[in-house]
């Protein structure tokens, strides 16, 4: 099962490498990983997407919790949550293609954020699934370059992850 784990950790050098090291050491996989400081500069928030059965996920969360730098964590997929990923994609766009791409961008509620006479750079935010669908709609031959931010997530409702 795909899980989104959100981790609050000390904003210290070496902290990130301990998290990443744990995954490679113990043979857990990381689908995506994002990290940035929070409103409290002494803390970073890391979101990682991993795949595993319940036993694997339990081991992952237990071992993450064991890291001294990790302050708190939550498996967002255990409850209702919002997940977002940002996609920037450069596409070939000339002649009739331009309108067609614009339509797709509108359908997916994206924005064209850069343009030349031959290409667009498009920004789309949403779930990973939605971004996959958008890329599929564009078609391989028009895509020049893709960059995705990896998933960020937050629980729905009043629940917060904080110290």
């Amino acid at each position, binding site marked *: 099962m795909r899980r989104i784990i959100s981790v609050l950790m000390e904003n210290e050098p070496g902290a990130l490498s301990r998290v990443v090291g744990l995954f490679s050491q113990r043979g857990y996989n990381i689908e995506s990983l994002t990290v940035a400081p929070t409103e409290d500069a002494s803390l970073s928030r890391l979101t990682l997407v991993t795949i595993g059965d319940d036993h694997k996920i339990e*081991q992952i969360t*237990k071992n993450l919790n*064991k890291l*001294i*730098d*990790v302050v708190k964590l939550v498996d967002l997929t255990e409850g209702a949550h919002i997940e977002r990923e940002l996609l920037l994609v450069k596409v070939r766009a000339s002649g009739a293609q331009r309108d067609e791409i614009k339509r797709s961008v509108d359908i997916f509620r994206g924005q064209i954020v850069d343009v030349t006479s031959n290409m667009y750079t498009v920004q789309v935010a949403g779930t990973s699934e939605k971004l996959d669908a958008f890329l599929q709609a564009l078609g391989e031959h028009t895509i020049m370059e893709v960059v995705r931010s990896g998933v960020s997530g937050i629980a729905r409702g009043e629940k917060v992850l904080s110290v």
Partner: protein
Amino acid sequence: MELLSGGDMLVRALQDEGVDLIFGYPGGSALHIYDAIFRQKSIKHILVRHEQGATHMADGYARATGKVGVVLVTSGPGATNAITGIATAYMDSIPMVVISGQVPTEKIGEDAFQETDMVGCSRPIVKHSFLVKSAEEIPEIVKKAFYIASTGRPGPVVIDVPKDVTNPADRFPYRYPDKLRMRSYTPAGKGHSGQIRKAVAQLLSAKRPVIYAGGGVVQGGGAELLTELARRLNFPVTNTLMGLGAFPGSDKRFLGMLGMHGTFEANTAMHHADVILAVGARFDDRVTNTPGKFCPGAKIIHVDVDPASISKTIVADIPIVGTVQSVLSEMLEILKSSDEQPDQSAIVDWWRQIDDWRERHGLYTAPRYRTDGALIMPQEVIRAVYEITEGNAFVASDVGQHQMFTAQYYLFDKPRRWINSGGLGTMGFGLPAALGVKIAHPDEEVICVTGEGSIQMCIQELSTATQYHLPVKILCLNNQALGMVKQWQEMQYEGRLSNSVYEESLPDFVKLAEAYGHLGMKIERREELYDKLREAFAIKDRTVFIDVYVDPSEHVYPMQVMPNGSMRDMWLSKTERT
């Protein structure tokens, strides 16, 4: 406030932490620290002959005392030489603080002379690590390092100290913190009372119970409580290789060690158990054999301070996260406050069954090795030493057949007396570990049981024994081969002894010992075994190297059948299988 340089701060912080002993080896990046050590009196520094020796010595010291072992090494090769010892301590959850010199801050990352990324190299084998960025951080980092190393599930902590940070010219106000606030680290305390009640009820209803106790009981100071609990319930106890001494080896309820080279009675009882109380043990693969076939009918109660150890390989029916001491004492309180007793007739039947297993193939009901040959058997050497030392010695072991024979035949009545590298299985551990123990307990008999293979991995520490006058006994079970490797090759590779023998290249250990200023003794004839051993053990003020030539063809049995075997599937001799 007093102004101190980083180097002086580091040493002062160690003093304030109560450290009186450091094991180390100097070099460029650590020289400011070494100078600070020179200018003080209360901390004694033991100069080893190889940084691996320093880590194992600190480790042996920590295992024998429960205190944190402290190591000081220089950057680069000094730091990397310490890696094996750090990994050894990590695998066995031993509290240790390793201070490594580092190149000056502004040179980090430039491939400077003797630069290695110590925090990076050691990352997978430490509980935590620190890279010191400024001298002002030193007191708090030292405080945190000792706290982390010694609490929860203990382990090694590295403090990497760039040379500029210890510069004697730069002074800062020094204050050692008396309190720590760490929002990200809260070691487990008491176990969940509801779970503990459930566990006690489960124990009381057991018909075929076994208590399976590991190194966590030794480390967590739970041996007395465990013993009280087992005696009160009259339950059989088996110890892991790491747990030996957690329950008295001479108690009739002791089944011996379990696992790969565990006793027939311990492994068979585990297999047939209906309730297993696992305390401070981690269901290591050398214990469980094939996890899918592990103890098919057993309800498992698992007590451990580390939540990540619970249900890692074997799923626990009643998991309890907490310190061994608090959980065991709570269990005892519940038992004492109620009149409930286990089902006596079931327990009597269970003991009858176990005694029958003991009679048939037990290690302690009859010798399970040759007693009529001309050659000295390794098992009888350990038996003899057990008798001569009346079971009271501290025994540090190396790794191989000799280690297993010692674990099987030297019965420890007290915790912290059996010192061995169980998790990593580090050859070379024995001698430095024994020296670390001897420093902690100068008046106790300390033995290093080793093989002619292992001893050569840290033999240089014989010189440290000379310098600090550490009269330990080195008991070498010399089978002229990497015996454990050879055993596997004989059992699994049709006897193709690929690189497990030395072709007449062994040194004369007697002369070697003498060259270091010690006594050497060789024992080759079976008739002289006891007399010579008595003679050796009568010597108290010299390091004695006892080189005993044992039957090179002997194997360690029982040995669990691998792969795909269950706990009770064992080879009992070269030809006999369960």
